[in-house]
C-alpha cells in the first residue's frame, strides 16, 4: 500500500512533506503537524513551533524523559527531551514510535519544522520513494 507524500518547495529546495496527527498519552499531546521526511536524520524531532502551537503545558512538558540534549537543526539551536511513546497517524496508518525528540528550549534561530527520521521509516516498515524531478513521492508498506 502507498501513502502519498507531497513535494513542496520550502526554504530553498524541494522537500517531501506529509501532514500527520500526533498523539501521546503521557505527556498529553495531540495535534496536526506538517513533517519533512529526512533520511539524513536518525531520529524524529517535533518542531519547536508545533510544540508551541499545540499549547503543551509546563506540567505535561515535565513528563518528558531524559536529560536535556542540545540539537542543531536547520540553523536553529534547541534543547530537547524525549517523548517516550507517541502515535503518528498518516492517512489511516498508525505508527507507534518511541523516543521522539521534543524541543523544550529554543536557544537560537527560527523554530525548525517537524522532521521524520529513519526511526519513523523503521517503525512503519516503510520504503520511501522520492522523485523530485516529477514532484512525486510516497511511502510504501506491505
Amino acid at each position, binding site marked *: 500500500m502507498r501513502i502519498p507524500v507531497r513535494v513542496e*518547495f*520550502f526554504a530553498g529546495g524541494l522537500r517531501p512533506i506529509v501532514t500527520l496527527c500526533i498523539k501521546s498519552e503521557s505527556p498529553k499531546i495531540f495535534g496536526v503537524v506538517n513533517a519533512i521526511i529526512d533520511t539524513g536524520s536518525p531520529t524524529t524531532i517535533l518542531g519547536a*513551533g508545533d510544540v508551541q*502551537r499545540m499549547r503543551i503545558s509546563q506540567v505535561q512538558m515535565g513528563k518528558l524523559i531524559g536529560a536535556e540534549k542540545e540539537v542543531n537543526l536547520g540553523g536553529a539551536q534547541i534543547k530537547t527531551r524525549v517523548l517516550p511513546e507517541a502515535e503518528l497517524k498518516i492517512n489511516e496508518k498508525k505508527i507507534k514510535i518511541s523516543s521522539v525528540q521534543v524541543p523544550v528550549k529554543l536557544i537560537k534561530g527560527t*523554530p525548525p519544522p517537524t522532521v521524520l527520521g529513519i526511526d519513523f521509516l523503521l517503525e512503519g516498515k516503510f520504503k520511501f520513494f522520492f522523485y523530485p524531478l516529477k514532484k512525486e513521492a510516497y511511502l510504501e508498506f506491505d
Partner: protein
Amino acid sequence: MNLQNSQLPKEISEFEEDSKWFYENADLLRKNKLVGKFVAIKNKEVIASDTELNKVVEEVESKGKNPSYIVIEYVYPDGTVILF
C-alpha cells in the same frame, strides 16, 4: 476546544489544504510584507501574523480557533536555504 473524533478528518484535510496554499503562495506572502513573520492560515487566508510565534498563537485563540489545527508557518526571506 476538544474536537470529536468524527470531526478530525475534516480538520486534517483543511490543515493539508491550507499548508499546500502556504507553500504555493510563499512569494505572495513575501510581497505582502510578511517576511520574517509567523503567519496563521485558515481557509487559504492569513488570519494572524507577527514576528513572535506566541502572539500569533494567542491571536488564533482569540478568534475562537484551536491553534493545534491551524497552519502556522514562518515566512523565510527569498533565497534562504535551510539545511537539515
